[in-house]
């Protein structure tokens, strides 16, 4: 996803000299093509996230679109107040980009796990939250995000994910939810890089005789409630899937929307429980341990539907 991001960004930077990318001293091997091709549009702010975000707001106030790039919680939690006061309150054209949403940096430990970021970013007034599920969605979302005025958060996974979408997504407009497959028994609603596991889980369920739809949310805030409610009103159970705690992220957003629509559907939130990952292991290992591997997702759906 991060490579898709850089590719999409470079296409935009070519046409927009007022686009600036700031990194918090991260992106080795990823951002190199950008800084080589657009040296005057690139700044390394050093390991100083708070002033990096203030700086981004200041730059944006001179009429620029400014992207701030870092990993894990560094571009969000470390500088949350700068995002709130300096960016969101000023409607500054700053795009916060996080690589490593979820458990991507598995073995590096909990400091590097971004498992509350969607909830926190979603809570900020004026913030739009983009949570693409695969590289194709990243390429579709980046130009849309850059067209969107004001402060945005872009949550990326890692590098080298498989594409779930078989072809590029034409003409994406936020907050459109993308229906990847229809199902008559239930549906999985996925936000972020966990889409690969969600997609595989649906295949497992299909083999087990459960007709399961899959919806990806490249944009979590605002939420495409129309698409979700149209689908949900035909179903008795829907499942949200996220690589994030079950509080305030994809599950939280969908529950809020469903509760206000008066549709008699039960929402089941699949994600990290309200905890930090204390186990050590790869992203795949931790996903399995915390119930968000394809197999564990499918199991949870089967148990819920069939007891």
């Amino acid at each position, binding site marked *: 996803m991060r490579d898709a991001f850089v590719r999409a960004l470079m296409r935009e930077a070519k046409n927009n000299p007022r686009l600036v990318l700031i990194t918090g001293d991260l992106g080795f091997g990823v951002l190199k093509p950008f800084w080589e091709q657009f040296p*005057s549009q690139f700044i390394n702010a050093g390991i100083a996230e708070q002033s990096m975000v203030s700086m981004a707001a200041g730059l944006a106030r001179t009429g620029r679109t400014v992207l701030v790039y870092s990993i894990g919680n560094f571009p969000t939690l470390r500088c949350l107040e700068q995002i709130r006061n300096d960016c969101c309150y000023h409607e500054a054209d700053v795009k916060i980009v996080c690589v490593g949403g979820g458990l991507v940096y598995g073995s590096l430990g909990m400091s590097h796990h971004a498992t509350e970021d969607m909830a926190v970013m979603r809570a900020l007034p004026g913030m739009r939250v983009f949570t693409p599920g695969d590289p194709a969605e990243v390429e579709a979302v980046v130009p849309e995000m850059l067209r969107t005025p004001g402060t945005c958060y872009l949550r990326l996974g890692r590098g080298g994910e498989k594409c779930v979408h078989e072809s590029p997504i034409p003409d994406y407009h936020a907050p459109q939810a993308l229906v990847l497959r229809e199902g008559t028994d239930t549906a999985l609603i996925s936000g972020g890089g966990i889409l690969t596991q969600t997609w595989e889980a649906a295949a497992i369920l299909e083999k087990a005789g459960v007709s399961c739809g899959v919806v990806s949310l490249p944009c979590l805030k605002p939420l495409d409630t129309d698409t979700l409610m149209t689908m949900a009103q035909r179903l008795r159970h829907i499942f949200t899937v996220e690589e994030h705690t079950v509080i305030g992220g994809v599950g939280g957003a969908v529950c809020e929307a469903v509760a206000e629509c008066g549709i008699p559907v039960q929402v089941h939130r699949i994600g990290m429980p309200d905890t930090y990952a204390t186990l050590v292991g790869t992203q795949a290992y931790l996903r399995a341990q915390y119930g968000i591997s394809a197999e564990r997702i499918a199991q949870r759906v089967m148990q819920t539907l069939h007891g």
Partner: protein
Amino acid sequence: MEYKEGMSYTEYTHLSFAPSVPDAMDPRVMAWLIRRHGLEMTHLSRGSHIGSIFSVAEIMAVLYTRILRVRPDDPAWPERDRLILSKGHAGAAVYAALAERGFFPVETLRTHYQNGSHLSGHVSHRGVPGIEFSTGSLGHGLGVGVGTALGLRMDGLSSHTVVVMGDGECDEGAVWEACLQGHQYALDRLVAVVDHNHMQSLDFCENTLALEPLDDKFRDFGWFVQRVDGHDVDALENALRIAYAHQGTPSVIIADTVKGKGVSFMENDILWHYRTPQGEEYEAALRELEAQRP
């Protein structure tokens, strides 16, 4: 030419004349007006922070009468200088200066803190012409100033960015992050002014987190440092002009001030970081200020 302490602007720059004066008002008059408005505003609103409003009065006065290139009739003029008040709690001082410079009617100052007003206690840009940036949480302004100065330089503009900070604010780590960045990017049109009133929220700075030697700290970060009496308008003007002319690194002026300056019983008393002037105390403060009317 190398800067030596006590040098005048003309000596430093070899120029035989100073740049044109942007406003005819004497900075002493402006400083008095800021205090007079500040007293009235905190009295009417039962608001706090009068000590900081009074310590920063001459700094704001010199900036808005002698230094900043701004257009009251065109607040968004692209080539204007940018002033960011990082110590947002002294917002009344900027509101007063802007009103006196004609950015909005002076009568508006009476709405400070009031329901439905735009003039919040901590400075906000929403609906207030001339306010560049909203602050209130300390340690944000210098980083914003770094980004602003970078952007203006990218646009080839000669505009300066001035960030007025508090000394207690220098406890914040983000200030020093921004110091590293300002120096790294050689932002010589970035000027910081520290309103060094030597007091913070609960006590004197030196009893809290000792800052001295503050000038050496900035110098070690690669900034061009001047230290002046922050109530001496001529010294402030001279230092600001030198900072504007200085090339190669960002500048900081450590302006030594007195918290509560101008009203005897408020000076150097931490109580007046919070206390609102009412009743006898308001009357006494008013008498003292009126006796100083220029």
